[in-house]
């Protein structure tokens, strides 16, 4: 037993060459597997919210404010595009840290967070506009379902932004290196998933009336 405190541990090359410890029997990362399991589970969360929305969107009383009255497709298309591009910058951040380019990693992390924030800003702007046009959370069943679905997505994006900024700060202080690339990758998975959910919401909620 070595009495040396080792902070960062053995790499993968030792696979199978000794009986030590209890490593991954599949050879894949625990944390990444856990994140994928979580994302699989999230599918059922958003599926439930989307189904609720689909079921309720047309059940409003005659003359009550509905999707056709409030949606601004060009505006939402722009913010959807911003979120989609944030997936590109996210994957570039990961690619940078994987080859050890910490500066590029920081730039792309920050860009991703900024793009995410623009999306959230757009959503706040959109919600305020809808509210002014008379669609509150309790106004009718469409309002409740719409705000709940998009609100849940917005909260997910916001959590993603917080995580990205935390990574950025860690990196800025010199605590995020190539060895921690997997941390970036896993937060990236979450980020891409949130983007993918928006791809679905944008089509099903906004584009298909």
């Amino acid at each position, binding site marked *: 037993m070595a009495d040396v405190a080792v902070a960062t541990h053995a790499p993968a090359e030792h696979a199978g060459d000794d*009986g030590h410890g209890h490593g991954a029997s599949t050879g894949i990362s625990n944390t990444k597997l856990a994140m994928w399991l979580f994302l*699989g589970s999230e599918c059922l969360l958003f599926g439930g919210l989307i189904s609720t929305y689909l079921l309720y969107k047309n059940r409003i009383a005659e003359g009550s404010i509905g999707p056709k009255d409030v949606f601004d497709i060009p505006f939402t298309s722009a913010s*959807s595009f911003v979120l989609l591009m944030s997936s590109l910058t996210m994957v570039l951040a990961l*690619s940078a840290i994987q080859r050890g380019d910490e500066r590029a990693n920081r730039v792309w992390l920050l860009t991703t967070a900024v793009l995410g924030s623009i999306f959230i800003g757009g959503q706040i702007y959109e919600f305020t506009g809808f509210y002014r046009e008379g669609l509150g959370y309790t106004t009718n069943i469409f309002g409740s379902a719409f705000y709940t679905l998009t609100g849940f997505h917005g909260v997910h994006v916001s959590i993603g932004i917080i995580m990205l900024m935390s990574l950025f700060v860690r990196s800025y202080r010199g605590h995020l290196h190539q060895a921690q690339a997997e941390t970036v990758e896993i937060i990236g998975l979450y980020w891409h998933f949130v983007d993918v959910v928006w791809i679905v919401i944008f089509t*099903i909620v906004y584009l298909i009336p």
Partner: protein
Amino acid sequence: MSTVSETHDVSPAASGDAHAGAHDHPSDLKYVKIAIILAVLTAAEVSTYTFDITGGLLVAILIPMMIVKFAIVAGYFMHLKFDSKMFTTMFVAGLTFAVSVYCVLLTIFEFW
């Protein structure tokens, strides 16, 4: 079989290299190309709005494009195409459960 008390002397750098070399990811240029494809698809989606397509035709155009975009992001940006099949299995399991269960739900409500 060695005992649990054994240890290895490793440097952080070794660990980083091992990770970077673990799988073949696309180059940055390829990521940009993929993003352009996604952008074009999005533009095509939005154009249905300006061309005033409606009803079943609209759904028939939009849903496949949505699925393609979904698959591209999951496959390339999320690396499912290059990573262990285990990840794909877990994610697709959740996705399949979600789609099938909620489709049955909407069918019972006579949504379609």
